[in-house]
């Protein structure tokens, strides 16, 4: 039985990744993911792994591509501007069906932005993690415990579907300390017969590649990959529902902002307003089913995000115009206050009378 320890979110990500069998880390310094790389540099060699500081984010993600092609459990981590640089490599990984885990400890944007927490890379993570038709699976933990839990799962999911997987955290979750129970180290990892690890004169050569110059081939391959995405949508949607069953006002929030939204829901219940919270844990695939279900009884939805309104698009797509969907957000490192959110809940509740 693992004991409970006090850890920073970034460190929990690192430790849990190693316990998931990750033995290769390639990164480049950036705030606020700093502790993750520092933890890896200190500890990866103790489990026989490789920590390597690359010359750039671009190089780091391409080292991930190479190690993944060679069959390794491999990851990189960065924060928003660095993730933009990695997007080329992530697209190539998706195109070559290579698994790997990418952590984004988000900070304010656009541009150099700020180094404070933000959720403004939601669109990037779920819509356009690089050029071309593809998705990455995106987990949005909201506690240090979930940082550990979902990165541990992310490696399995990445290997299972042969796809890059992203942990979309933020500077608040990365920097805060909370008690966490770490998972047991994995003892067996999946076979990778497709890996470019030397054919040992025993098989045809394996190729890691995303180039298909024949239009029909690429067309077919993209359709096949999207069939796999349909399976992922069916199997991997995750959400946490809090007081949703009888809720009139359903809040939708992920990651750090879900913690604030939950406080606001409790405050609303205390004054007799039937509020609830849907907290998407996977942002892609988006947990549409439970939002559709809630739209049958909810009077209104309220999205709370640390951005200018990004996930709210997905909520509106799920609700499909059947109920009003409002948005409350703060950006640039400003954290929404529970009372601000409560005011929104109150006015929605009054509007519904």
């Amino acid at each position, binding site marked *: 039985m693992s004991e409970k320890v006090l850890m920073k979110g970034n460190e929990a990500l690192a430790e849990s990744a190693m316990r998931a069998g990750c033995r*290769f880390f*390639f990164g480049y310094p950036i705030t606020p993911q700093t502790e993750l790389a520092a933890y890896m540099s200190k500890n990866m060699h103790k489990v026989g792994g*490789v920590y*390597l500081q*690359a*010359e*750039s984010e*671009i*190089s*780091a993600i*391409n*080292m*991930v*591509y*190479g*190690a*993944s*092609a*060679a*069959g*390794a459990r*491999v990851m990189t981590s960065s924060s928003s501007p660095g993730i933009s640089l990695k997007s*080329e*490599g992530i697209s*190539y990984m998706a195109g*070559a069906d290579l698994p790997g885990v990418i952590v984004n400890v988000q900070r304010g944007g656009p541009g150099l932005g700020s180094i404070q927490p933000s959720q403004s890379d939601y669109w990037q993570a779920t819509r356009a993690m690089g050029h071309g038709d593809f998705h990455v699976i995106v987990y949005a933990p909201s506690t240090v415990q979930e940082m550990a839990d979902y990165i541990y799962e992310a490696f399995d999911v990445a290997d299972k579907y042969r796809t890059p997987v992203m942990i979309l955290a933020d500077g608040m979750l990365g920097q805060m300390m909370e008690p966490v129970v770490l998972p047991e180290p994995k003892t067996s990892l999946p076979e990778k017969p497709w890996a*470019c*690890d*030397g*054919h*040992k*004169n*025993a098989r045809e*050569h*394996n*190729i*890691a*590649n*995303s*180039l298909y110059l024949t239009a029909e081939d690429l067309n077919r391959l993209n359709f096949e990959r999207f069939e796999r995405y349909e399976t992922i949508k069916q199997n991997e949607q995750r959400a946490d529902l809090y007081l949703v069953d009888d809720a009139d006002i359903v809040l939708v929030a992920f990651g750090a902002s879900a913690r604030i939204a939950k406080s606001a829901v409790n405050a609303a219940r205390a004054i007799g307003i039937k509020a609830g919270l849907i907290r998407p844990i996977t942002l892609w695939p988006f947990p549409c089913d439970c939002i559709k279900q809630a739209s049958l009884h909810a009077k209104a939805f309220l999205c709370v995000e640390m951005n200018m309104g990004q996930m709210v698009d997905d909520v509106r797509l799920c609700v499909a115009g059947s109920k009003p969907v409002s948005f409350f957000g703060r950006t640039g490192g400003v954290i929404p206050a529970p009372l601000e959110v409560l005011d929104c809940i109150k006015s929605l509740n009054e509007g519904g009378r």
Partner: protein
Amino acid sequence: MAEEKVMFDRPHALLPIVTNYCPGCTHGIVNRLVAEVIDELGIEGRCVGVAPVGCSVMAYKFFGCDMAEAAHGRAPAVATGLKRTHPENIVFSYQGDGDLASIGMAETVHAASRGEKITVIFINNAIYGMTGGQMAPTSLPNQITQTSPYGRDVITAGYPIRVCEMLSTLDGVAYLERVCVDSPRNVRKAKAAIKKAFTYQSESRGYTLVEVVSTCPTNWGMTPQKAFEWMRENMLPYYPLGVYKDVVAEGFENAAEAALKRAEACPMVNVQKEA
């Protein structure tokens, strides 16, 4: 009946696939030399190659060993990932001048300075071939290309980069040689260089690169023979053939030992790490 003996055959590490190279292009020769070396060293089963973006983009189909196709310029980073995961494997990248010396210069310099135990085969033909003949980082001053139609003006477009000379300053490098393949004699020398590079890698001596000064008859607008003449006349004076670094010839076991010697006056460098 007289006994028949095979005198010349396709190397095993080169698959029987029609290449996409233009007639007269030197890529075919260099592909073959790499494959011959892989055969002779008996390493195909533990060899992994990295193809670039450029004319040799399809090289992942041509070589019989495992292959990864990299994004433009990123081959050294991909090779790093492949090699670090399986240090027992022999990893090479095959890159052109645009890929290696322009978009991929950061990856090139840092893989070399880390002393990644990989082998880079660098084809320098002073032009972007696949995209139709644009100015490359190695295009010569006054060279006419699609994007330097009045000749490369060094005042505005800057100077060509001499890759071997530049990399020779880096401590992680074990071996650098510039060769060409315009004659049987030079082809043999090129093969010896490639073989030495692969051998040094298998002996974990450090980063190795062989630059092959090449031609592009199609985009230079010349016959293959004329292209070789132009190469000899203009490129070789700018990019002289020869060995630019060989730590073994300098009397060292490997790049690390040579680096230590070079920095011996620096006390920090000589700090003994605890086991």
